[in-house]
């Protein structure tokens, strides 16, 4: 069957192929429209597209501004800093001092490390919780769990960060005897708190929007309830779940306050999850307030902003591509 790309980005498996092309109403839903109504409609449409373009323009302009502040590094050296400084050895970030060092590799590795830890913790928890509420929980319980998790999404990240800094980091150190009280793991756990509700909510929506028909067909063929949930509903909702993971990743990689407070901020180049870590976003947050406006250090911080923006855009792009392929494969199989 030819699968036209769905216009509704978030209606995962909702466009049921069986009903496609049929008109559910035998007579027109709306009476023939007058010229005035037509004009109002057109105006409304224009307004909505204008709003959409404003949003895109804002994002684009933010990127232009950030890139413009970093750009002078590309053609001249400012305060002894060039566009290559962030790649020069040693692998150290010590921007203030006799011989400033601007290598951003420890920051990139640190950012990816914390994000990965957060995703590894958050994904199984959030997905299992979503699957439970969507497939197994009795309706009364479901109505209670979902808002409760969504309250978690409303906790300001500074509160999560502060909690990790003051309470959780000590618990972890006492329990596991870490040499460093604040480390990538403690920051990753804090980040997971922020990411879990996001992944949970979006993937739960994806799971519940899988047509009931699928479940009924599976059960009718003799599959048990867990088999149906894991082998039928989960794959059918996979594009939506994948979108949830991409969103969660984006949130985790850009999150600033939690890592600023809970990671220890030492710019160590290491793959161990038990040492302190300094992220790109935390570096911008803690240093931008100090730097001389227009100086080399200032420009490098904006360059970091560009790098962060490019990393997230690249991941989103890969995510979107993969998601499209996933959708095509699913609708092809159906």
């Amino acid at each position, binding site marked *: 069957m030819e699968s036209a790309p769905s216009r509704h980005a978030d209606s995962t498996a909702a466009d049921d192929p069986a009903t496609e092309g049929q008109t559910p109403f035998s007579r027109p839903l709306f009476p023939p429209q007058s010229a005035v109504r037509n004009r109002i409609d057109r105006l409304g449409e224009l307004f909505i597209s204008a709003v959409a373009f404003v949003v895109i323009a804002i994002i684009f302009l933010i990127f232009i501004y950030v890139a413009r502040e970093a750009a002078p590094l590309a053609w001249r050296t400012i305060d002894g800093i060039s566009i290559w400084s962030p790649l020069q050895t040693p692998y*150290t970030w*010590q*921007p*203030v*001092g*006799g011989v400033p*060092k601007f290598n951003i590799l420890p920051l990139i590795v640190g950012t990816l490390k914390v994000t990965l830890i957060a995703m590894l913790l958050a994904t199984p928890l959030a997905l299992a919780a979503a699957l439970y509420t969507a497939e197994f929980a009795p309706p009364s319980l479901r109505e209670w769990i979902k808002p409760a998790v969504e309250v978690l999404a409303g906790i300001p990240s500074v509160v999560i960060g502060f909690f990790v*800094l*003051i309470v959780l*980091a*000590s618990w972890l150190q006492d329990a596991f005897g870490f*040499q*460093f*009280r*604040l480390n990538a793991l403690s920051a990753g756990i804090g980040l997971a708190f922020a990411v879990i509700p996001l992944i949970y909510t979006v993937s739960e929506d994806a799971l519940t929007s899988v047509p009931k028909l699928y479940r009924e067909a599976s059960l009718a063929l003799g599959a048990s309830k867990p088999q149906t949930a894991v082998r039928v509903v989960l794959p059918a909702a996979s594009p939506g779940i994948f979108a949830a993971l991409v969103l969660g990743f984006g949130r985790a990689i850009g999150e600033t306050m939690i890592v*600023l*407070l809970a990671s*220890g*901020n*030492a*710019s*160590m*180049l290491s793959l161990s999850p038990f*040492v*302190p870590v300094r992220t790109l976003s935390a570096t911008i947050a*803690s*240093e931008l*307030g*100090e*730097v*001389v*406006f227009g100086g080399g250090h200032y420009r490098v911080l904006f360059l970091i902003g560009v790098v962060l923006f490019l990393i997230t855009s690249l991941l989103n792009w890969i995510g979107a591509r993969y998601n499209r392929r996933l959708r095509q494969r699913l609708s092809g199989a159906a």
Partner: protein
Amino acid sequence: MKDHPNATIQVTGGGSGTGIAALVNGTTQICQSSRPMKDEEKASVKQQRKADVSEIPVAVDALAVYLNKQNRVDHMTMEQVRRIFQGEITNWKDVGGPNANIVLYGRENNSGTYVFFKEHVLANGDFAEKYQPLGGTAAVINAVVKDVNGIGYGGIGYATDLKAISIAKDAASEPVAPTMENALSNKYPLSRFLYWYTASAPAGTIKDLVDWVLGPQGQNTVKDVGFYPLKGDAQTQ
């Protein structure tokens, strides 16, 4: 403030560099700093504001090296402190403590205290890779209070619930405790002035403020908040 009902003071934090940057940009009339302004900074004030900076020392501070109360080390030489923060000494047993790894805490690089420490203790060398910069002195204190093996630094005015160790200039000299007398007599190796800066000679309300801080009332306040008055107890009552 009662004497000057028409004056408003708006205070913004962030560290010495933040204040100096604000003075350069002209977004503040007066800024405080825990380190002397660099020559380049004075030059950029002159360039941007068309006026000479005036530097007003307002108080004396001792930069303390903090340890956890449970740590049995109570003095070190400047050289030992430097080697610890540069990562050359990594175990407490090398400075007379227990056999445990040293965990380094300190300020972020937007802090005058960071720059002062880097210049005066590390002789402008780099901090160790494992050095953990935190957002403020309160965060450093909190970290060292919670970490038995921690070491940090900051103004003496903040040191509560932890130990501010005595420091010797070199191996041959006696360790000196961070007290007011030692800071004022310059015996304590890590004493420093705290400054106010204005973009030109203070005038009007700013001059009233400067006169106040240098007068007995202001200097008493300096003492109340944990720093040392410029002339010791002689000036305050």
